[in-house]
């Protein structure tokens, strides 16, 4: 029985993707810790990735899967740069509260 591939409808995947994305947005908006905000962004990216894969599978198109690789690559780079910025900010301010980091000038 090919339960997973045959029986789970596409809408379930999309709903999961939407739920994950919303969680990301909400986390981004309400969390105060910069690292959590950062993780929320990653969550949103992966929610989008899930949608890409789902549609690629549904329409037998490879483009969506290729796009996922691009997103992952950019996310990896962004994680590296973002974490570096976070460390720099923490060194300068001794805090990671988003509300306190509201000036460009250090």
């Amino acid at each position, binding site marked *: 029985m090919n339960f997973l591939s045959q029986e789970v409808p596409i809408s379930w995947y999309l709903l999961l993707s939407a739920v994950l994305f919303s969680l990301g*947005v909400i986390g*981004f*908006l*309400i969390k105060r810790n910069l690292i959590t905000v950062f993780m929320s962004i990653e969550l949103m990216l992966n929610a989008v990735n899930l949608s890409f894969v789902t549609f690629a599978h549904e329409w037998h198109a490879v483009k969506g899967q290729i796009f996922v690789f691009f997103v992952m690559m950019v996310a990896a780079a962004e994680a590296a740069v973002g974490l570096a910025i976070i460390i720099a900010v923490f060194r300068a301010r001794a805090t990671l509260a988003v*509300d306190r980091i*509201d000036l460009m000038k250090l």
Partner: protein
Amino acid sequence: MNGNLHLWLIPLLPFAGFLLNGLIGARLPKWLVTTIALVTPLAGFAVVLSAARGIFGVGAAAGSLPYIETCPMGWINVGMLHIDFSFVLDQLSLVMLLVITGVGFLIHIYSVGYMAHEEGYARYFSFLNLFLFFMTVLVLAGNALVMFVGWEGVGLASYLLIGFYFRKDSAANAGKKAFIVNRIGDFGFLIGMFLLLANFGTLTFSEIATKLGQDSGWQGGVVTVIALCLLLGATGKSAQLPLYIWLPDAMEGPTPVSALIHAATMVTAGVYMIARTHVLFDHSPFALGVVAIVGAATALFAATIGLVQNDIKRVLAYSTISQLGYMFLGCGVAAYSAAIFHLMTHAFFKALLFLAAGSVIHAVGGEQDMRKMGGLRKKLPVTFWTMTAAVFAIAGFPPLAAFFSKDAILYSAYLHGTGGMVLWFVGLVTALLTALYMFRLWYLTFMGEARSPEIHPHESPWSMLGPLVILALLSIGGGWIGIERFAAFLAPATGQRVAESNTPHLELILSGAAVAVALLGWLIADRLYRQKPAQAAQLAEAAPGAYKLLANKYYVDEMYGATVVKPLLGFSRYVLGWVVDAGLLGGLAWLLGGVAVFAGAILQRWQSGNLRSYAAWLAAGAAAVLLFMTVPTLLGAAGITLNLHWMGH
């Protein structure tokens, strides 16, 4: 004459000196600055001499003049307008070049001694070299625009050198005055050039002459207007009525500068310009008449002021204005070669007078008031004897230089048809006054007893006395060439028939009259300033009104101040300054700035600096876009149709 004369070297050599001393002179040792400053004009003089040798030399083809040198790259090519950067060497420019570079070099030598202890030694010489550069460009110019470049350039150099002691307010103001007054003249020159371009389509002197010669229709009218515009330019540069007021103030500059720029060379540029464009004046008897009247009036006017000045340099300044008036008078009676002849001898004796005055001032420690001098004859023997040569020369005693040149002008004026007698008479009276004020200067400075015990004069160094001696020799012998030979030499350039002395008796009588008035002037001065010194004061008291009028220079400065300067300043301050600048332009700027500030105050609310508010706006925007795209679909699914054809559904 064959081969290349390399005329471009004549201006460029002093220019190199200007660049070297101007850029790095302050860091060079003094002997090197001196060497650069002296070698570059000397080399220029050598180039002039080699060119002159080709012209005067045996078998030289003087007929190959004018020799023209044009910058191969061209200069101005705009539409129909083609102007070359061209130099012309002909008899006229050759005489001028010899005077400028020769006398200029002598004054450079003199300056080495005079400026030895001054601050800004390298700056001084770089300006002096710059002046020679522009002056030679002016003289060599083949068209009016190149001449204008030199014309403006010498004005700049003059401004810089008048204001050389820029820490002194009076010097800085004198520089500005010279510059601004000259601008009025330059305005005339510019308008004249525009009119030349509009009517002749060219600024090249030779082409203008050709066009004027071809068509006899050019009489009066536009030619008169052009000539009068050029005359306005000439009165500015050559300090004639009504624009002479800057020259007496220009004496604030170092004395060698007064000798070179404000006596021997630059101020004669106006005379040279009229001689250079003489074809225009020849075609307009009216303009020529104006030139003659301006010259005669200035000569007499300045001479009367010179009578009562006490500053030794100011006497010489008014004397310069007066002598320039003679040259204009010469030009005005179409005796261009006589005017140029007087220009040349004047360059010798007036440079000498100034340099000797500088030597006197140097000797008495900067004092310029003649009333505090006196009895310097024994203390400064070389200065005294050279000055004496110059005084007798300018007074017009034979056989000194100015006797011949002044005589030539007066003779030409006398023969000049209607009104010639009046011009001659004015010239004669001026000659009397000239002798009077020059001998007054001579007696006050050198004769009698020392009037100021605290002055301990000492003779100047030989670097200053050497040029004095050479110039004294030139002042004595400079006129021996004779006007006939001189006019014949210049004839190809000034296009003038040689004045035939077919009335030798008349000429003799006129010369006799000139010498007689010179003698009379000497006698009056002798009586007033040697025999009975008290009489001069009594004379001043006897006619207080006249004396006051003269001592205050006819109140011309005050008159210009009240009629021109004050209204202009008021207009600038109130109308232009307050209404236009502060009101209109400032208001507009405030308005624009206010709009930007106001808009910024509103727009800055978006930029709260709060990351989460940005993100919330972003999310809300994304949600709005999402809704906008899905609502029609959802509605469609519910059976409701919206007519949104542009959506592509």
